[in-house]
C-alpha cells in the first residue's frame, strides 16, 4: 500500500475513535410511536354491541313510538346535558389495559374495599357493570343488577314507582353532611344517581320515550371505543383551568370536543375539536402543535425524559371538515411502565 494512503486509513480510525470518545450518552432509546388504528368509527364488533343495546321504548300515552334507542345514551341526553362521557367498563375490564388497572387496584392496600363493599351488596363491578356514564346531571350505570341488594345499597328495596319500569328513591344525606342522593332504577339494567327528583323523572321519561325527545348527546353510531363522549367548550375550559383569557379563547374557538379512546391493546385517543370559526380552529391546532413541540423540547432539555417520551406520542392533525384532531397513541409497554408502581417497583417509571 502506498504510504500516503496510510494517512487516510489513520484518519478514518481516528474519526471512529473520536466519535466513540465524544459520544454524548443518549438517554434510553425512545419507544417508537406505535402504528395504532385510531378510533374513528364503529368496528364490526362494536356495531354488533351497539345493535344489541338498542331497545324499543314502551308505548307513550297510547301512541307507540317506532324508533329504537340505547337506554344509556337516552339517559345521558336527559336534561339537555352539554357534556357526557361513557366508560365501557366491561370492554375495558377484558382488555390488557384493564388487566393492568385491576392489578394496580388489587395491589394497593385499601383500594379493594370499595369493590368488596359493592360485591357484598350484590353488585360485582367487574362482572355486573357494563357501562358507566357521567354528565352534569349525574351518573348513569348500566349492567345486570338482578342480584343487587337494593335495601343494603339505598336503604329500601323499592322506591316510588314512575313510568313503566322506573323507581325513584331519595337517599338521606349521611350524618357527616352532603346532599340528598336521588337513585333512579330502570328495571334491573340501569341506575341513575343524581341530586334531584326532577332529573330522575327526566331520565325515566327519556329512557321510556315519553314527551319530546331530548337532543341526543351521543348517537349510537358514536359509541365506539372503550371510552367516548363529548365535552362542550365551556366545560372543557372549566376542566382545564388556566387564566380567564385562555378560557375565553377556548370557549370561543371550540364549541364541542368529541373523545374516543381505544384500549384494546395499545392506547389510542382521538379528540376531535369542532367549532364555528375555521380560522380560529386552525390557530388552535397550530397553538396545540407548537405547545406540544415546545413542551417536548423543554422536557428533554430539562432531563425529564419520561414527559418528553409521553409528549412524543401526541400529535395534532390538520382540520378535517371544520374540525381539528388531537391524536395520542401510547404503546402498551409505556402504559405498563407507568403503572409499574402498583407492583411496588421502586424504579417504576424511571426506565
Amino acid at each position, binding site marked *: 500500500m502506498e*504510504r*500516503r*494512503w496510510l*494517512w*487516510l486509513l*489513520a*484518519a*478514518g480510525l*481516528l*474519526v471512529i*475513535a*473520536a*466519535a*466513540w*470518545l*465524544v*459520544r*454524548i450518552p*443518549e*438517554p434510553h432509546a425512545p419507544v417508537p410511536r406505535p402504528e395504532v388504528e385510531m378510533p374513528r368509527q364503529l368496528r364490526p364488533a362494536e356495531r354488533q354491541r351497539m345493535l344489541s343495546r338498542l331497545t324499543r321504548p314502551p308505548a307513550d300515552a297510547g301512541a307507540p313510538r317506532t324508533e329504537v334507542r340505547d337506554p344509556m345514551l337516552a339517559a345521558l341526553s336527559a336534561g339537555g346535558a352539554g357534556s357526557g362521557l361513557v366508560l365501557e367498563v366491561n370492554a375495558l375490564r377484558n382488555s390488557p389495559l384493564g388487566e393492568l388497572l385491576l392489578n394496580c387496584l388489587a395491589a394497593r392496600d385499601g383500594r379493594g374495599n370499595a369493590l368488596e363493599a359493592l360485591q357484598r351488596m350484590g353488585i360485582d363491578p367487574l362482572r355486573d357493570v357494563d357501562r358507566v356514564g357521567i354528565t352534569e346531571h349525574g351518573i348513569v350505570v348500566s349492567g345486570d343488577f338482578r342480584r343487587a341488594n337494593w335495601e343494603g345499597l339505598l336503604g329500601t328495596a323499592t322506591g316510588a314507582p314512575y313510568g313503566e319500569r322506573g323507581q325513584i328513591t331519595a337517599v338521606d344525606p349521611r350524618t357527616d353532611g352532603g346532599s340528598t342522593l336521588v337513585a333512579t332504577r330502570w328495571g334491573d339494567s340501569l341506575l341513575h344517581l343524581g341530586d334531584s327528583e326532577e332529573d330522575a323523572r327526566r331520565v325515566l321519561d327519556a329512557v321510556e320515550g315519553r314527551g319530546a325527545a331530548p337532543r341526543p348527546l351521543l348517537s349510537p353510531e358514536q359509541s365506539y371505543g372503550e371510552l367516548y363522549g363529548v365535552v362542550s367548550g365551556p366545560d372543557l375550559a372549566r376542566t382545564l383551568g388556566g387564566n380567564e383569557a385562555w378560557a375565553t379563547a377556548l370557549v370561543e374557538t371550540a364549541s364541542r370536543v368529541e373523545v374516543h379512546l381505544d384500549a384494546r391493546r395499545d392506547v389510542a385517543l382521538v379528540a376531535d375539536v369542532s367549532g364555528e370559526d375555521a380560522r380560529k380552529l386552525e390557530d388552535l391546532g397550530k397553538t396545540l402543535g407548537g405547545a406540544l*413541540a415546545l413542551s*417536548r*423540547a423543554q422536557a*428533554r*432539555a430539562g432531563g425529564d425524559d419520561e414527559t*418528553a417520551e409521553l409528549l*412524543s406520542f401526541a400529535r395534532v392533525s390538520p382540520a378535517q371538515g371544520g374540525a381539528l384532531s388531537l391524536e395520542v397513541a401510547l404503546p402498551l409497554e409505556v402504559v405498563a411502565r407507568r403503572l409499574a408502581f402498583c407492583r411496588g417497583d421502586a424504579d417504576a417509571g424511571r426506565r
Partner: protein
Amino acid sequence: MISLAVARDLLLEAAARRWFLALGLALTGLLLLLLISLRLEVVDGALAATRLFGQPLHHSIQAADVALRPVFLVASQLVFWGGLCFGVLSCADFGPALLSPGRIEHLLSLPVRRWELLAGTFLGVLALALAGAVYASAGLVLVLGAKTGVWTGWPVVSAVLAALAFGSVYAGMLAVTVWVRSAALSAAAGASLVVLGLLATHRAALLDVMGPGVGRTFFAGLTSVVPPLGKLADAAGALASSAPFAPGGLVRLLAGTLAFAAALLAVAVWRFERRDF
C-alpha cells in the same frame, strides 16, 4: 524536532504580526485595569474585622474563594469562546502563508518531510493559543490573588482546555487550506467547526425535534464526530470556578477532541503528500 523548528518559525512570524501584538497589549491592559480598579473592600473588610474582633461583622458574608467563583467562571468562558473566535480570525492566514508560492518551494527543498511541515504549523498555532490563554488566565489569577489572597491554579488549567479545543478547530482550518489556499475559506471552515461544535453539544435535544429523514441522518452523523465544544467550555468553567464535574468524562472528551484534531491533520497530510507545487 524539525516540526518544532517549523513551529518556532511560526511563532516568530506571529510575533511580527500586529494582530498578536495587539492581543498581547489588550490582555496586558485589561489585567492592569483590573489590578488598579477592582474594588474588593468587602473581602478586605471581612479580613480586617476578623483580625480585630475575632469574627466577621456580617455573618452572612461569603468566603472570598466562593465569592470569586463567578468571576473565574465568566473569565474562563471569555477565554474559551473569545479565544476561539480570535484564533479563527487571526490564525486563518498561517496555512495559506505556508503554502504561498516561493515559500513552499523553498521549504520543500529543505530536508524536511511534508507531514513535518504541517505538524510544525499546527504545533506552532497550538503553542500560540496556549500562550495567549495561559497569559490571560494566569494574569487574572495573579491579580485576584494579590487583591484577595485567594490563590488557585484551576483557571490556568481551564485555559489549557480552551487552547486544546481551538487545536481541533485549527486542524480543520489547516486541512481546508491544503485543498484551497485561501485565508477566508480557512476562517470560514473554522467558524463552521465552532458552530458544529455548539450543535454537537445540544445534539440530543436537536435530534429530538427533527423528523426522520435524510436531514436528520446527516445531522446525526456529522455531529457524532465533531467535539461538543459547549461541553468542553462547561468543563473549563467548572474547573475554573471549582464547581463539581466528572473528571472521567472530561478525560474522554479531551481524548476525543485530540483524536478529531489528529484525524483532520491526517487527512491534510494525505492531501499534502500528493500535491504538486
